[in-house]
């Protein structure tokens, strides 16, 4: 009976071995985990140190760059003034100026305007006036721009003057020419005035409109 109720040694030994094995695995796992933790911790510390070194280097690089830029501060500031003022110059010329001459030249080229004679006497103009006066037949054919107003929004009034029917017809043809009409976004005929005197016949044509904005030399350079 005693023997039957006695200790089963072989079973106990196998239990011991099992538990011993389990704890052996636990020990190995703990060692592996410890190694991993050491590695991870080491990596974190290494990264931090590396970042500190990188930060120091990059800060130095920035400071060197700043110093080299600041070496010529006066020269650079002068260049900046030039850049800023040229930008303003273009802006003022594009927005605040009528650019009269540009529009006048276009009209003059297309209408074959008679150039005004110089009323203030100087040598050249006197000679020119004399030459013009001698060729009266030529004058008679010409078209004169009596008045031209122009504002910065390109609104304009044009008064052409012709001296006979022939030049009047010529002017009408020129005004109806697409090249001339293309200069304007809007153009209206405001009136025709016939002023017949004893010897001369003056025919005035009044136009009112808005020029298409011409690209000036300063725009092109932007």
């Amino acid at each position, binding site marked *: 009976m005693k023997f039957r109720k006695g200790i089963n040694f072989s079973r106990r030994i196998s239990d011991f071995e099992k538990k011993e094995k389990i704890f052996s695995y636990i020990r190995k796992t703990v060692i592996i985990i*410890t190694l991993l933790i050491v590695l*991870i911790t080491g990596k974190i510390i290494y990264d931090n140190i590396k970042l500190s070194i990188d930060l120091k280097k990059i800060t130095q690089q920035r400071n060197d760059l700043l110093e080299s830029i600041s070496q010529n501060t006066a020269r650079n500031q002068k260049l900046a003034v030039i850049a800023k003022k040229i930008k303003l110059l273009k802006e003022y010329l594009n927005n605040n100026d009528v650019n009269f001459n540009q529009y006048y030249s276009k009209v003059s080229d297309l209408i074959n305007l008679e150039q005004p004679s110089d009323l203030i006497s100087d040598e050249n103009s006197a000679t020119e006036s004399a030459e013009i006066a001698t060729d009266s037949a030529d004058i008679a054919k010409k078209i004169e721009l009596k008045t031209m107003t122009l504002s910065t929004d390109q609104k304009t009034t044009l008064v052409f*003057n012709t001296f006979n029917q022939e030049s009047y017809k010529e002017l009408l043809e020129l005004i109806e020419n697409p090249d001339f009409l293309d200069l304007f976004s809007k153009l209206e005929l405001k009136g025709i005035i016939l002023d017949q005197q004893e010897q001369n016949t003056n025919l005035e044509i009044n136009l009112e409109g808005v020029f298409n904005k011409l690209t000036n030399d300063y725009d092109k350079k932007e």
Partner: protein
Amino acid sequence: MTKKNNFLDKYTIALIKENLIYFILLAVNIAILISVSLYFRSSILEKKENIKKIQSEIDKYDRVKKRIDSMNISTEAVDKFYQQINMLIPNKYNMFETIAAIERLARESNFATLSYTVKPENRELNQLEITIAGTSSPINFLKFLENYNFSSGKLITINEVTYNNNATEVEINLTFYAYDTKEDNKDVLNIELPTQDDLNLLSEISSKINLDIAESSDNFYPIKENPFVK
């Protein structure tokens, strides 16, 4: 059964005790990992952020430096351009200079000035308007309209023109400009630099002005130090 359990528990406890050092080691390591991670995490993130910020600054400064280096222009040329542009658009108005500029423009285009009317200066727009009345022949007036922008040595614009082929009396509004760039150029890293086209334009304008740059700014208009000396 109870005896068996007791026996097993005792043995297990004995094994745990025997391996306690490993469990402590594991706990300590986990604690170290957590504290190191927490301690360095914010530091690493902050450093990464700083590096990113400084790198972007370096890229920006590098571009500025490259642009400055690419400005292949001598200091003398820079000084000359600087004087020229400051003559066209000065930092502030000088009434004597302005009147001298009008006189010069009038002289060059045979415009006989009869009167000036100076309107109150528009500081906000950096503009000074002066109405001039005078006599000019139509051909001289056209010449005036061709040259007024720069020939006086100052930038001048006109906002409205009435050209009359018969009239000799003319009244016209001239606008002069001044601009102080002092405030714009405080930060040397954010400065704008002129392009080659800008410099070419300035050279072209300067070639239209028959004014000696050496005479500019302070000596733009004739002065006499002693009024009793001829």
